[in-house]
């Protein structure tokens, strides 16, 4: 049996990725069922959200328990600007930037301290926003009638697809850059990284800002997608913890892990919700515990072990 060279396997990978993107682009043209496209929208939303959480949580090793704050800030900003007459893209960009500002507000003080302060700080921030937004904006935010009349699903789907690709691409570019190398060095050994000239604070803040930016963009896409929702919804803790679980299940600190985790999670949840209603929460809770205990690398970790074992047998 002839073995594939690294260049060959790289070429196969690229062809596979392009094929996958082509299928995703063609999807709304081929499938006319709205419920399937809606499911695909949720898959792409969570691919972006999990991948953006992973930029900070996976690559830099900082546990963010308040990603919903960034998702929500992006959603709220984009929704308000867009409904007030701004064009979509400046509104989205503003949403991402507001999320970054919020992230730096918590990151600059919290990263000066080591330990659990950042995790607690982000959790507190997102819960404060959840409650405050619930109090200040208690009314449902609906699209005006003239927008509803021309509402189309396909452009929403393409926006989510673009943001997912953008987020994944940014993560890939990051880990192959000097900046990404520094970020991962800080994750591995903070003192050792500092003693090589890597500023731990700066690299954590860069990872945080990128993570928040893409979380905010994803929120903005949600605001463009949804016909009517309570603004508080986008700040709910489930956005944080669903994304976090997807990353753990798929494989933290990898590019592919969050994607697999999100696809697996959303589709399984859809199947379970149809048959078990709220019981799916128990299933995911149990699954999460099992993965953390027995598969610390998630699905990607298992895949790594299998391919290593196969290589040894050859």
């Amino acid at each position, binding site marked *: 049996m002839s073995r594939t060279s690294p260049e060959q396997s790289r070429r196969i990978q690229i062809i596979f990725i392009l094929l996958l993107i082509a299928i995703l682009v063609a999807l709304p043209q081929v499938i006319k069922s709205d419920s399937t496209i809606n499911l695909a929208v949720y898959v792409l939303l969570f691919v972006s959200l999990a991948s953006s959480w992973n930029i900070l949580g996976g690559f830099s090793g900082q546990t963010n328990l308040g990603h919903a704050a960034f998702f929500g800030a992006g959603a709220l900003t984009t929704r308000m600007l867009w409904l007030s007459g701004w064009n979509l893209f400046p509104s989205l960009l503003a949403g991402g930037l507001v999320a970054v500002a919020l992230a730096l507000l918590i990151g600059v003080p919290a990263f000066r301290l080591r330990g659990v302060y950042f995790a607690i700080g982000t959790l507190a921030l997102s819960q404060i926003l959840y409650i405050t937004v619930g109090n200040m904006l208690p009314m449902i935010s609906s699209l005006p009638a003239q927008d509803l009349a021309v509402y189309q699903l396909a452009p929403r789907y393409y926006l989510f697809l673009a943001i997912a690709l953008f987020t994944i691409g940014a993560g890939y570019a990051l880990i192959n850059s*000097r900046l990404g*190398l*520094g970020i*991962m*060095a800080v994750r*591995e*050994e903070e*003192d*050792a*990284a*500092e*003693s*090589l*000239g*890597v*500023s*731990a604070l700066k690299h954590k803040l860069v990872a945080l800002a990128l993570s928040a930016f893409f979380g905010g963009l994803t929120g903005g896409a949600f605001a463009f997608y949804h016909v009517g929702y309570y603004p508080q919804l986008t700040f709910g803790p489930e956005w944080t913890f669903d994304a976090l679980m997807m990353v753990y299940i798929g494989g933290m600190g990898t590019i592919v892990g969050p994607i697999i985790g999100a696809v697996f999670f959303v589709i399984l949840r859809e199947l379970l919700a149809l048959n078990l209603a709220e019981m799916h929460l128990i299933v995911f809770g149990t699954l999460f515990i099992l993965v953390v205990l027995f598969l610390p690398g998630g699905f990607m970790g298992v895949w790594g072990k299998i391919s290593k074992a196969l290589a040894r047998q050859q």
Partner: protein
Amino acid sequence: MLKIENINAFYGDLQALWGISFEVNEGELVALVGPNGAGKTTTLRVISGLLKPRAGNVRLDNRDLGKEDAHKIVELGISQVLEGGKVFTAMSVLENLELGAFVGRARKVRDETIKWVYHIFPRLEERKTQRAGTLSGGERQMLAIGRALMAKPKVLLLDEPSFGLAPILVEQMFEMITEINKQGVTVLLVEQNVRAALELTNRAYVIENGRIVGQGTGDDLLSFESIRSAYLGDCNA
């Protein structure tokens, strides 16, 4: 070149260093010896900026390093090899070395420096594609030193490079350190292996309970009575 003046350092409320002063001249190989818990590692952490002293100065070529962060101090020319090496186990040997040349000044000459490091530690070249986590203890220590050299330091701080190594490897390690020093790198070495360190160095300082209690040439200290009885297990001294 490197001057430490009246350093007081604390861990929380616990004072670890009491008015430490000493200096290292350009090109020297100086040892800081003493028992476990004397403050050797703490002293290195103060010099490299990982621990901020509450009083006193650290000067490199007359520049005060007191306010600088650890990563900035590397740029100014001091690299520390942490106790136990602390290599990035998930990365390859080569990636570890490349990370060593992170600061701008060192990055420009990275490829040349790698050749130099491979010349000092040929073992690292043999293992360059291997994950650092698969290296032996001695190889990890070599990698940690090689990684620190990649930053092209003026002063290299070594924390217990012999720790956990087999006796034969300790000897080799010290030969390599002498070689690095001969190539123009000023070295401050912290060691519990007092005899080996004193045989190796130009000068040494003895630290106990956070205070400098003795200094001299390696040979002087080796014949120093209290040193012989305290550290060298020499009951006849």
